[in-house]
């Protein structure tokens, strides 16, 4: 009870820290000057219709690279966590009920759609909402479905690892290409800008997003596999 009481007091304190501070701010009338620069130049710099994508992939490309790394590290970590468990000899197999008819049939219909949707999302990231992460996660969800529906029994580790490694390495390589062929690290402008608003535009942004998509997809699949195979 006393613990509750202190917790409440703490909460009150926190609320009194947070709310007065945010209460000082009301709706903004315009974006910040930096954002203004992005909005004005974004199209000319990278030819991306989706300014958020331009920010994510190019202006703040290093963040995104880091983000991929975080995911990568988490995937590696999770697989280590569960590997440790397997090593401890707790590998009693749970009996898995066979997938139902609906699941199997549904999966057969849905899987291609899901994969295509995923790929679409990351390829079109520079034009519409979406991008590599979203696409990758959609693909991973397809993999999950495939597991449930029994379409895949075991993930081909070599293949997944290959995709993961290759995509990641290519991402870094593209970044380095930016140094040598264009202005700086992760500069997508070493590829032609193309026509604004079309699929093959915005330099290497679609390439990067595709690589991210592949990488995220394979990483997420890896996580799913790590948890599943426990």
């Amino acid at each position: 009870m006393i613990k509750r009481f202190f917790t409440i007091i703490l909460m009150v304190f926190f609320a009194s820290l947070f709310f007065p501070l945010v209460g000082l701010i009301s709706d903004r009338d315009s974006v910040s000057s930096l954002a203004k620069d992005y909005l004005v130049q974004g199209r000319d710099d990278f030819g991306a219709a989706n300014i958020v994508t331009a920010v994510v992939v190019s202006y703040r490309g290093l963040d995104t690279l880091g983000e991929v790394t975080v995911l990568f590290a988490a995937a590696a970590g999770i697989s280590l966590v569960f590997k440790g468990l397997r090593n401890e000899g707790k590998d009693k197999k749970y009996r898995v009920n066979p997938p139902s008819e609906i699941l199997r049939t549904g999966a057969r219909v849905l899987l291609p759609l899901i994969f295509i949707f995923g790929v679409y999302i990351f390829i079109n990231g520079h034009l519409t909402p979406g991008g590599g992460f979203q696409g990758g996660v959609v693909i991973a969800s397809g993999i999950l479905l495939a597991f449930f529906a029994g379409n895949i029994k075991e993930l081909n580790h070599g293949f997944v690892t290959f995709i993961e490694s290759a995509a990641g390495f290519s991402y870094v390589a593209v970044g380095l290409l930016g140094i040598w062929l264009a202005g700086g690290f992760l500069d997508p402008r070493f590829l032609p800008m193309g026509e604004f608003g079309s699929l093959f535009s915005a330099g290497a942004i679609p390439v990067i997003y595709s690589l991210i998509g592949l990488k995220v997809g394979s990483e997420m699949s890896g996580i799913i596999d790590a948890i599943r195979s426990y």
Partner: protein
Amino acid sequence: MMTNLLFILAGALVLVGLWGILTRRNIFKIIIGFSLVDTGVHVFLVAIGYVKNGTAPIFDKEYSSLHSLLNTVDPIPSALVLTAIVIGLAVTALMLSFAVRLILKNRTLLVDGKKELKW
């Protein structure tokens, strides 16, 4: 106005999440609490980017005069949130996996069920 409402939402989410972390003893509930806090912060960040009557910062061929350009919401917080969400996801996933190990080891779902590390 919109911003402030969103702030209140964000603050409420954070506080509810913290409350959950502090008072629930089930590990998974604690992690849910943590997710709530995380989400609250994301809402907060998105709210920061809000501009009165702004639209999404996505252009098509026509929609590109300077005036309309500036009538979008701030794209930077959106980009940040994108990153933050993914990172939050990674953290939550890892946290869950640790939780699984912890629960299997302690044979209890309670977070303070078996304290082997203290002092």
